[in-house]
């Protein structure tokens, strides 16, 4: 691994942890869903760096697009704020 790639991996890992904590702690469920979507984006880049393009493609299509939209539709039909 080159130096620039190592720095990028560390930065991405920090973003991943921050997004995960944000998704868990957030009371507004719509923002929490955006947090999980951000986790999926970062994970997808990680899978690509770790030479698993198949998994990266799956994560990008299902984790970022489809599951996010399913959560958003569900929140729209139920309640937006956690008690």
């Amino acid at each position, binding site marked *: 691994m080159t130096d620039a790639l190592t720095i990028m991996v560390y930065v991405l890992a920090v973003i991943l942890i921050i997004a995960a904590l944000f998704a868990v702690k957030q009371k507004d469920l719509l923002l929490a869903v955006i947090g999980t979507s951000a986790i999926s984006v970062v994970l997808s880049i990680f899978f690509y760096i770790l030479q698993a393009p*198949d998994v990266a493609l799956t994560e990008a299509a299902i984790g970022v697009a489809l599951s996010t*939209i399913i959560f958003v539709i569900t929140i729209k039909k139920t309640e937006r704020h956690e008690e």
Partner: protein
Amino acid sequence: MRKVIAVLLLGIVGYYIFSSFLEIPFGENRATIGDYYLENSVEQTGSVNTITSIIVSYRGFDTLGEVTVLFLASTGLAAILFDNRGRKRRRQHASLIVRIGAHLIYPLIILLGAYVFIHGHLTPGGGFQGGAIMATGVLLMFMSYRSFEVNHKWLTYLESFAGITFVTIGLSGLIWGDSFLANVLPLGVPNELFSAGIIPIIYIAVGIKVGAELTGLLDNLLKTIK
């Protein structure tokens, strides 16, 4: 009393998990099956994408199970949301830019999805990814045009046809080959579009099935009772 029993049970479970973890040597490569796949997959299955050859050929039966799980999830959601009075999507106020953009991008996304699952044995990707990309394209049209409808009858037909194709190919392997999903077609030259025997056919079937299922699922979710 209950707490004591809970702690006791946790202790027993923890002891056995810990003692079985102690048996695992760290820092040693115990899973040597990966090397076997990397060395033999191209000549045994004819697919240059080793992951595809594992998913469809070596572990093809598991893939059939995964497709069945997705089918059950989609059917279950449709059963929960079913309503006799008829359901419709609510009015969507998509702006002109979104509508024109969606109209331009929609065929390209469908084409990309089809490319991903037709070239599953050559490039990264495959049936699941291609089907999900196709469903994303249809979702874009759902959100932009209120009048855009999918025909559920045709979706059901496509889904059943793809599933039947998968099982029929598997059974033909049992008849003419030596196992379920055995590669009965000629392997051809690796790295060409028409190669790897049954793998591209199965991945196209999986792609159509996943795309139809996810599209039906999204349509069911977006509709509300009038």
